[in-house]
């Protein structure tokens, strides 16, 4: 079956949303980076969306990435419209960001109860939490937590593979 699926990638600032989408983009991708004027630990930040088409095991995914800051919460709503699944990203090494991750997660699921996976990045950091711990903090199903490196194409595909499994269960 090869109908295109709309998937949303969301999560707090610096979780790796844009990196993940760039890594897996088949052909071109759209980003909307603007220079960051606040201290967020990186030079640029997404102000509207990222977009790319991906191929995951023969299934075409149309992936939309959201901005991470709460001031862009209207984009979460706009991009979540019609999405069939969500990849929520959270950093393993910044427990202080987890309440924000939970807020975004709850907001997206309140829009529509779609299948999700929790993608956990920055696992190589010294103080990293285990992906299952992150999921529990988010009050999410720990079996849906996937630790991965969004910079590595082989690894970056894993949350989407897991999400497609979850979607297959629903179809």
């Amino acid at each position, binding site marked *: 079956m090869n109908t295109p699926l709309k998937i949303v990638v969301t999560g707090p600032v610096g979780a790796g949303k844009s990196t993940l989408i760039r890594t897996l983009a088949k052909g071109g991708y759209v980003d909307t980076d*603007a220079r960051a004027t606040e201290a967020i630990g990186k030079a640029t930040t997404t*102000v509207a969306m990222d977009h790319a088409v991906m191929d995951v095991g023969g299934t075409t995914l149309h992936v939309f990435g959201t901005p991470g800051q709460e001031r862009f919460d*209207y984009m979460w709503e706009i991009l979540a419209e019609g999405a069939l699944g969500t990849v929520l990203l959270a950093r393993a090494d910044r427990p202080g960001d987890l309440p924000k991750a939970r807020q975004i997660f709850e907001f997206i699921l309140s829009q529509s109860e779609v299948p999700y996976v929790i993608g956990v990045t920055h696992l190589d950091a010294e103080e990293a939490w285990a992906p299952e711990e992150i999921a529990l903090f988010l009050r999410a199903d720990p079996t849906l937590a996937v630790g991965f490196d969004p910079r590595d194409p082989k690894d970056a595909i894993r949350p989407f593979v897991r999400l497609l499994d979850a979607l297959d269960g629903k179809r």
Partner: protein
Amino acid sequence: MTKQDQITQLLEALKRSLPEVREAMVASPDGLPIATLGSQDTAARIAAMAATALGLGRRIAQTTQLGNMKEVVVRGDQGYFVIYQAGDKGVLGVTVPADANLGLLHLEAREVARALADIL
């Protein structure tokens, strides 16, 4: 005079030359308010949205080969919100009613956007 004062003066001058201007604001390209003539309550929200519209507009301009992004016009049945690129460090947003002269607004606001680009 601080940058902030200079920017506020530019916005006030815009409002003097075009009294129908309802609100005028300047935001950073990543959506944080810098200065506003208008409601403080909605300033943060409008600043974020102006940056989103301009950021997306820039990508649309590139993808459809329109060159460098200049402005985005949102037209409602009760007015316009026009967002101008002010160099690479600022965004100017102006609200006018539906019967405003859009040509005149462009003339004045583009000048303000250029001046803002020099200040920022």
